[in-house]
């Protein structure tokens, strides 16, 4: 369902040309849990932006669900993000002083769902993400980091996307809370067959996925199944 073929990305700032990606090709199938791992400056963020339809490649093609996304306009990219993608960010990016439920409802507003259906879906997504019902009407800034990240996961899930993209989802969390969030992803992948792409610079975090793509200096240096997958049991 994700098919990247020879993707390059070159940034022009004045006279200086920065090559962020040089010929990246890979495929990700439905229901996979893949980690893209690499140090900072490796081009993993650029790759994430292209997979996330936030940016288009300089050359090469990117197919998402058999649709060529690499040459779309800004508005068409917005439609792709709306219908097919769910994002989880390092810094949660929840609307402050807004209830948890309303935060999760937000993507459905842009997707044009009728207001009755929105709440039902949002509540289901929050339960899926493992957030207790007692928090639904709290303001997002009253929650702990782990709870906030679960709200963000629920927001990513709510529109039933083809792909969930998590960009350093544990970066702002302590190890224990990070484990909870990672196990949430594992559960979603195993029980509901969600396709998840996890971007991280930490091997430890990447080892929670089934497959690890290692990227360095804009090129894939390793793409292999994760043989010693870390499992966290009984939390979610």
């Amino acid at each position, binding site marked *: 369902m994700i098919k990247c073929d020879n993707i390059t990305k070159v940034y022009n700032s004045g006279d200086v040309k920065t090559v962020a990606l040089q010929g990246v090709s890979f495929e990700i199938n439905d229901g996979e849990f893949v980690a893209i791992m690499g140090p900072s400056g490796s081009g993993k963020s650029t790759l994430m*932006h292209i997979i*996330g339809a*936030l*940016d288009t490649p300089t050359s090469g093609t990117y197919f998402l669900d058999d649709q060529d996304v690499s040459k779309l306009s*800004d*508005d068409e990219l*917005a*439609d792709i*993000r*709306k*219908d097919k993608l769910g*994002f989880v*960010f390092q*810094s949660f*990016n929840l*609307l*402050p*002083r*807004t209830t948890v439920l*309303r935060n999760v409802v*937000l*993507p459905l*507003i*842009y*997707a*044009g769902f009728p*207001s009755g259906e929105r709440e039902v879906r949002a509540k289901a997504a929050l339960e899926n993400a493992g957030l207790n019902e007692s928090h639904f009407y709290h303001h997002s800034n009253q929650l702990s980091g782990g709870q906030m990240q679960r709200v963000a996961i629920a*927001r990513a899930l709510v529109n039933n996307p083809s792909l969930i993209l998590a960009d350093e989802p544990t970066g702002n969390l302590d190890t224990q809370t990070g484990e909870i969030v990672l196990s949430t992803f594992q559960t979603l992948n195993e029980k509901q067959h969600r396709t998840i792409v996890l971007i991280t610079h930490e091997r430890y975090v990447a080892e929670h996925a089934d497959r690890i793509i290692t990227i360095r200096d804009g090129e894939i240096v390793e793409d292999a199944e994760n043989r010693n997958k870390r499992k966290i049991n009984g939390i979610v």
Partner: protein
Amino acid sequence: MTISDLFKETSAALLVNKARTGLTMLGIIIGISSVIAMVSIGQGAQGTIESSIQSLGSNLIVVMPGAQRGPGVQVSTGRGSAQSLSLADADAIQQQILLVRAVAPEINGRYQITARGTNTNTQVIGTVATYPSVKNVEIDTGSFIDDQQVKSLAKVAVLGPTARDDLFGEGVDPVSQTIRIKGVIFKVVGVTKAKGGSGFSNSDDIIYIPISTAQRFLTGHEYVSDINVQAVDQQSMTDAQTQITSLLLDRHHISDPTLADFSIMNQADIMASASSITNTLTLLLGSIAGISLIVGGIGIMNMMLTTVTERTREIGLRKAIGAKSRDINLQFLSEALMLTFAGGAIGVILGWILSLLVSHFGGITTSISLFSILLAFGVSAAIGIGFGYYPARRAAGLNPIEALRYE
């Protein structure tokens, strides 16, 4: 995104920072309310002036004596002080001009009046029986001077309400009491109704006596101070004025109209010049208030720009979850619009209250027109769009990747 979603999003965003929203709105509230209040004062003044001109009489043309201009050195005497109009002129106008309904010549002067030990200095007008209909004077008690009294040089007087209060006290019926004007005893036969006005233009501080009596006992000559002419209707006023001019020129044996020894004013001219003055006044007051409206608009733009910077990450997130540039643009524009509309609505109410207070405590008549309310709303909507456009476009133009990274 439906309209109701947009409305909810917008009001939620504005309620997040209530103090800032309130202060920004205050700028618009002050601007709109001062425009409403100022324009209402201006229009109220216009109404007052127009009605007081109207109360002078209807379809009124006033003929006044003027200095005769001759060749050589000109000695300028004040307008109206010359002695060039006589009762015969008034009679001629009445008899020879068909467009005239009534003519009321008058002689006026200020005299010391005494009655039962009190005394006052006031204006005495010598006139004829048609005066009340020409100058819109109404009788409260008793009656006005009649033709018989004018013919017989009767020593009778009709008092204005202020003159009555000064001489006899408030509420006292002075009919058939006596007063002395310049030592001559007059019998009071009536009191007129109050017309309003104050200071030098007080049309209530007046005593009316027959014109013949005034000529014989007070002035001692046969000239009149001015001749009030009532035209048959509004349309014929200009024609009547032309005919009176040529009649009087003929009677005074003056061939060159520029050398006329009288001048004629008609009510429409007075009205036109008065309303041009009050229009200027309204414009002046309105534009001073308009400046504060612009300042309020700049306040809105300032707040919107701050908001866009502050909420850069939110904008990035909204774009990441599928909002188009158009959605972001609409959201911020509607925030600016809601600020100005809410501010505008409160401003209209406040301006209304303000103008009621002004007319209650300041004694100035104010009038609020639908036009000024619509204008204020239109202006606030325009300010919302005008000053909200740039910040909204800036928000919509943000790159989602950079917006999400913004610290």
